[in-house]
């Protein structure tokens, strides 16, 4: 008996079929479990263990190894500020401080309403557009402290259903690592990356 919804179970079956061995599906299924409940719970990890035919301890060992599997309640918007070397050189620490100050949420924490989580992260591969920030893993490059404050206010006020990189870049970003135009129609709806084959963890922005 699975605690997962019908559609999540279908996804899980589909994902497992992509791998030669069931155990290899642990990570994608952990994302799926997060999408079901907003963060990883013991029940979610046990469910993954059943699907992959390994022990819950083995699943926990994997989940705890990776920073993106959130085992604590995470806000609807996960704001990740890069403070790695290049971003630091170009003001990434100040951007983080602006986000913390404007939101009242210190890094590593979530606000009481479950709206916003703030974290600082190591390099997210956007150094050409440093300093970089991600919201639910959707990237914004060339963010100033002032723009970071505006971003926080916007998230709280507009409460977008889906966050979209291009839209946020337009509103709150400046220089990008590389810029070849073209718009991206997908966005993220949770504190996990919006990656289409997992379906439930991403969504198309409706025009």
């Amino acid at each position, binding site marked *: 008996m699975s605690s997962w919804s019908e559609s999540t179970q279908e996804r899980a079956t589909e994902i497992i079929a992509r791998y030669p061995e069931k155990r290899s599906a642990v990570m994608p299924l952990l994302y799926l479990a997060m999408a079901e409940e907003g963060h990883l719970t013991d029940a979610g990890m046990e469910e993954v263990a059943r699907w992959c035919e390994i022990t819950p301890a083995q699943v926990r060992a994997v*989940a705890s190894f990776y920073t993106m599997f959130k085992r604590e309640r995470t806000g609807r918007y996960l704001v990740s500020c890069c403070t790695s*070397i290049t971003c630091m050189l170009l003001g990434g620490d100040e951007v983080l401080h602006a986000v913390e100050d404007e939101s009242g949420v210190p890094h*590593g924490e979530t606000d009481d309403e479950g709206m916003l989580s703030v974290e600082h992260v190591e390099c997210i*591969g956007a150094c*050409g557009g440093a300093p970089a920030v991600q919201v639910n893993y959707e990237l914004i490059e060339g963010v100033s402290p002032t723009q970071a404050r505006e971003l926080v206010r916007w998230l709280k006020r507009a409460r977008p259903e889906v966050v979209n990189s291009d839209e946020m870049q337009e509103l709150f970003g400046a220089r990008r*690592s590389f810029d070849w135009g073209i718009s991206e129609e997908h966005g993220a709806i949770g504190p996990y*990356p919006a990656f289409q*084959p997992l379906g439930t963890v991403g969504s198309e922005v409706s025009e």
Partner: protein
Amino acid sequence: MTTPLLITRRMTDHPGDSQTIVRYESTGGYAQGKRALGLTRDELVEEIKTSGLLGRGGAAFPAGLKWSFLAPERPAYLVVNADESEPGTFKDRQLLERDPHQIIEGMIITSIANEVHHAFVYIRGEYAKPARRVQTAVDEAYAKGYLGGGIFGSDYDLEVTVHLGGGAYICGEETALINSLEGKRGEPRLKPPYFPAAKGLYMMPTIVNNVETISNLPHILALGGGEYSKVSDSADTGTFMTSLSGHVNRPGNYELAHGITWRELIYEIGGGIPDDKQLKAWIPGGASAPWFIPEKHLDLEISKDATAAAGSMLGSGAVIVMDEDTCMVRAAERLVRFFAHESCGQCTPCREGTTWLEMILRRIEEGQGRAIDLDLLVDVSDGISIGLAWPPKMTTICPLGPSAVSPIMALRDYFRDEVDSHVVNGGCPLKSGGATPQTPRSPGDETASEDGRSSDPASPDPDRMPGESE
């Protein structure tokens, strides 16, 4: 200094739709994948060997040689390493987002040459958009019959699975990546015996290649290995992608032919330092590489051998530029923090050593440093990487630990005075300041690993500062 664009040609000429299969095919795409079906393994391996292509993931290992080493057991697997997480590096993201079919065609060629029928792309978890782009491209290729059962109407089957990582730099190391793909913690394996070419994914022969390496393959077949090897005048063949960032006027990714100098890269291509400031130092090959300084290295050729002779490496191709106002202690701290955070915790010298280094650097930066601290940093580094040599003498399972020592080598060799003035001043003598955000360690927290071993990274006692007698 003209650069023939190969792997960034399509995205440059067709910025609006270079990621689509329509554009890919209308610009010659998939012709080489099809052609590879008619070539023998020996012919393909020979072509790549002749091209002189070196791996672009960091270790610069010859790609053709890697293929020729693949053990004969089957099934064999191919994993494209798109875990790109080395600070300063963002070239693979561009290739993933802007030309994913080029990667798929490279995978088809590699698979045919090595009799692989299931290939993977392991993309770092934070790269949501690149992963979406690659998955879309894979779906398009399946729909056209270029992937799946009987590709291009032949009897050759090839499945491709796109796999999303979970936010751990160490999974870029090829054996850690394999563990991760098997559904385990991303801890590197001991080599020997776990060379991927012999005992890789599911203990079967496995090829792991970087995104950029794979992207070159269609071009090598199109040009011919011999012609490709003449693209650059340098001993290093072909082109390479460099990610230029930091204090330069024109940061970004550039596809260049080997053989230009650092001066040309930083001042001509990169447009020099903002506000006409002086160049203080740069990191020539990603966060792991020992630093270069203008007094000694500006006119060196950018090539594998010239960089190695000067005691560093081209690594992941990332170049991080720092101007005269940059605090070297702070820069070193930030790099060391990265390695401390990303250490998987298996080896004591790496797990403990990087944490000590980070603490000592932070206290120097915050004005609590002591006169002996630089020697102490060198001492601790010596425990991770004997003699602080480059390339390092390894005491650890993988090169992550020794990489953390590169910034310390720079402080010791070039910026001793600056460290001292931090100590004498009781703080940073330069402009930058402010508290450093500290990162809780990620890999290996309170949860016991599956073999029952506690993986708590026994962190140093904060009450006993390093250097104090016990």
